């Protein structure tokens, strides 16, 4: 890991086109601004990893339909119960 000490408003450049700027320094947190191309995802680590793990659980190789158990496939042919999605 490369370690830098930066003051407010200072910038770190990563690769070609990624910039990280220190916007505000607080007692126990720092506000960072990140500029990056649209092809580069930029996210909080813990949130990204949580979604990454869920996507990996969801993925099938080619042909997702082959992974559906027959009984579940039969059940899915009936209307889905709406409203089960509330947190």
């Amino acid at each position: 890991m490369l370690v830098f000490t930066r003051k407010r408003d200072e910038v770190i450049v990563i690769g070609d086109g990624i910039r990280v700027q220190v916007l505000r320094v607080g007692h126990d947190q720092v506000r960072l601004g990140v500029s990056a191309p649209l092809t580069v995802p930029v996210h909080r680590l813990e949130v990204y990893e949580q979604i990454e793990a869920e996507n990996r659980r969801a993925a099938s190789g080619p042909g997702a339909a082959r992974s559906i158990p027959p009984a579940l496939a039969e059940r899915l042919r009936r209307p889905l119960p709406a409203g089960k999605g509330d947190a």
Partner: protein
Amino acid sequence: MTTTMPQSAGPAAVAPSNDSLPLHADDVIQFPAGIPGFELCQRFVLLAMDGLMPLRCLQSVEGPPASFLVVDPGLLAPGYSVPLSSADRARLGAAPEDPILWLVIVTIDAEERAFANLRAPLVINPAAMRGCQIVSAEARYPLRSPLVTAGD
């Protein structure tokens, strides 16, 4: 009886959903950053599956082979609404008036229970054929929302 996908990702008309936004299966949707865990999967097609509507299949056609069961979140959570950030809107090349297609990924676990990831939806802009997954700390919806179980 098991329903199987066609062996090739050949063209098959996709029944419209989300207010009749037509997408033909042989049209490729660009995901510029892939999706978390599948960053190299940047080109997908959206396929209908015989008899399994409303579920569809989002299949990677470039990079690692991967496919995902997806469904319209509006069918699972009435009034479903997740904010689209300006960064994601730029990623989609979407003007404010462009209609957006929302889909959520469905996981089936070892016990044959199906869950939908309502927290991190896929967002597609049909006008530009671009998509992305929303990654946000906002936890308004569950990461694993039960769909149905085979015993329902």
